[in-house]
Structures are given as C-alpha cells and as structure tokens.
C-alpha cells in the first residue's frame, strides 16, 4: 500500500516538474511549483517526517508561492523567449544527473538500519533524550538543544536574508520616493 502511495506521489512530482518546464505562462509555472511543494510535503508525511512536511507546506507552498506571485506582479507573467540554444545546458544537466545517480550506487539501500547515518549519533539521541532533555518530540530536542548551535546559525541565515532584502528593496524604495515626491516625506 505504501509503495503504491509512493509511486503515485513521485509520479505526480515528475509530471508537475515537466509541466513547470513546458509552460511559458509564469503564473501557471508558479502554481505548478506550489503543487510540487505540496506533493513533496505529502512525500515527507509518508516518510514520517512530519516536522519537515510542516515546514515544506508552510514555506514551500505558502510563503514562496506568494513571494513569486508578488514578483510576477512586478515583472509581468510572460516568459521571455530564450536567447540561446538549449542543447549545451541540456548536455551539462544530463551528465551531472548521470554522475549523481552513479554516486548513489555506493550508498546503502534506502532506510537500511545498518547505514552509517542510522548508526552515528541517532541511536544516542533517541535513547538518551527522554532522560537528558525530557520532551516528547525528539526532533525539537535535537534542533533546539543537541544541535542548538546549528539552529542559531540557521536563524542567523534568515536574519541575514531579511537584512539583505531590506537593503536591496526596502531602503531603495524610500529613496526613489523622495526623488519623485519630496513633499510626501515631509
């Protein structure tokens, strides 16, 4: 049963990705990206990664779709015709993809219990976190406590992104306002 769900979800992912490539209406492409993220979130739920699915549904489907739609509102919804032949990029992508797939042959089978990733620190977190941290959600325990330093780094990335957007879009907008209509600011 779970295999059937996986096949359907992954098949829909491929169809959505192909549709996003084929379409030239950027509005439709954005909606396709939103559907893609929603399907990815469903895949994460099937994998029992509900925290990741939650993030994907909120950020991938919600925020990034809204941001891309807002950008389309500024730049127009029609894709420009490509100025170059797509042959060379296609070859580069196919070679890179083939190399990546070849690289996965050396990896342990999916969800193998003896894989190094399952043997490293994960057993200790799962066994010790009820005694050391004492909260039921191990994901939160790992994120906020065991790996608190990494989460601080992630938050710094978000903070930096916010500052970057403010510097690029927020401040310039106000200056152009002043240039256009100085009385509005006073």
């Amino acid at each position: 049963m779970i295999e059937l769900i996986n096949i359907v979800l992954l098949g829909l992912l491929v169809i959505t990705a192909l549709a996003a490539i084929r379409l030239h209406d950027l509005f439709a492409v954005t909606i396709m990206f939103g559907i893609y993220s929603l399907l990815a979130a469903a895949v994460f739920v099937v994998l029992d990664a509900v925290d990741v699915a939650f993030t994907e549904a909120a950020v991938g489907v919600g925020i990034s779709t809204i941001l891309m739609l807002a950008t389309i509102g500024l730049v127009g919804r029609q894709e420009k015709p490509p100025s170059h032949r797509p042959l060379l990029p296609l070859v580069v992508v196919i070679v890179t993809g083939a190399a990546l797939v070849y690289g996965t042959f050396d990896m342990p089978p999916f969800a193998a219990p003896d894989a190094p990733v399952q043997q490293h620190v994960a057993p200790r977190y799962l066994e010790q976190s009820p005694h050391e941290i004492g909260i039921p959600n191990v994901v939160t325990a790992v994120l906020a406590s065991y790996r608190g330093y990494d989460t601080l780094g992630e938050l710094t990335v978000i903070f930096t992104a916010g500052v970057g957007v403010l510097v690029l879009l927020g401040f310039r907008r106000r200056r152009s306002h002043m240039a256009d209509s100085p009385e509005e600011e006073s």
Partner: protein
Amino acid sequence: MKDIPVLRVVTKITIPIILLFAMYVQFHGDYGPGGGFQAGVIFAAAFILYGLVFGTSAVRQVVSPGILRLLTALGLLLFAGVGILTMLLGGDYLDYNTLGQDPLHGQHLGIFLVELGVGITVAAVMITFFLAFAGRRD
C-alpha cells in the same frame, strides 16, 4: 480586493484562527510536530493574508517597518542571549542545564526561549519579505 464583502468577512474570521494556530504550533512544539520556524511562518501568513485583501499599507498600520526591524534583531538576540546567559551561569554556550534548578527544567526553559526567538525572527523576516516584494506597487 477589499471591495468584495465575502473576502473581507472570511479574512477577518480566518486571521484570528491562523494566529491562534501559530501560537499552538509555537508553544506545543515540544510535544507535537512544529516549533519556532513553522509557527513564525504561519504567524506571518496571517499578516500576508491581511495584506493580500486589504493592501500592504494596511499591514504597515498594524505593524510598522521599524517594529519589524526591531523584532527581526530581537529574536536572534534572544537566542544568542540564552547562550550568553548559560555561560554566565557556569555552563557551556547554549547548555541549558544550568538555567533551571535541575537539568531537565533548564532544558525545558532553554528550548522554550530559543524556539520563541526563532519564531519572532522568522515571523518578522517573512512579513518584511512580503512588504518588500508586494509593497513596491503601492
């Protein structure tokens, strides 16, 4: 879009539910799926919905860009400040064991505070993104 009565009414009913759900995700992250990051995004989604229907200037009246900038820094400072506090109390950086009277209590308090910091910064940055992108047309 604020001339359409159905949108206006449904938005005003929905926004409190979204904000309440964001609070639930924020403070229930220890027990179920969720945490500061998801809660911040959901909290921001309520403001974005408000902005989509009533315009970005209406959002600026609710929360001014100055306050948003303050909150963006405040969340990160709260997270980093918890680390400084644990060092002052004699532990390592971000070692919450020293925060409470016993290690488990300290861990609870530390996780609560850093998740709150994550939520504040993420919500403020997401609203800033929306205002910066969508606000350029007004």
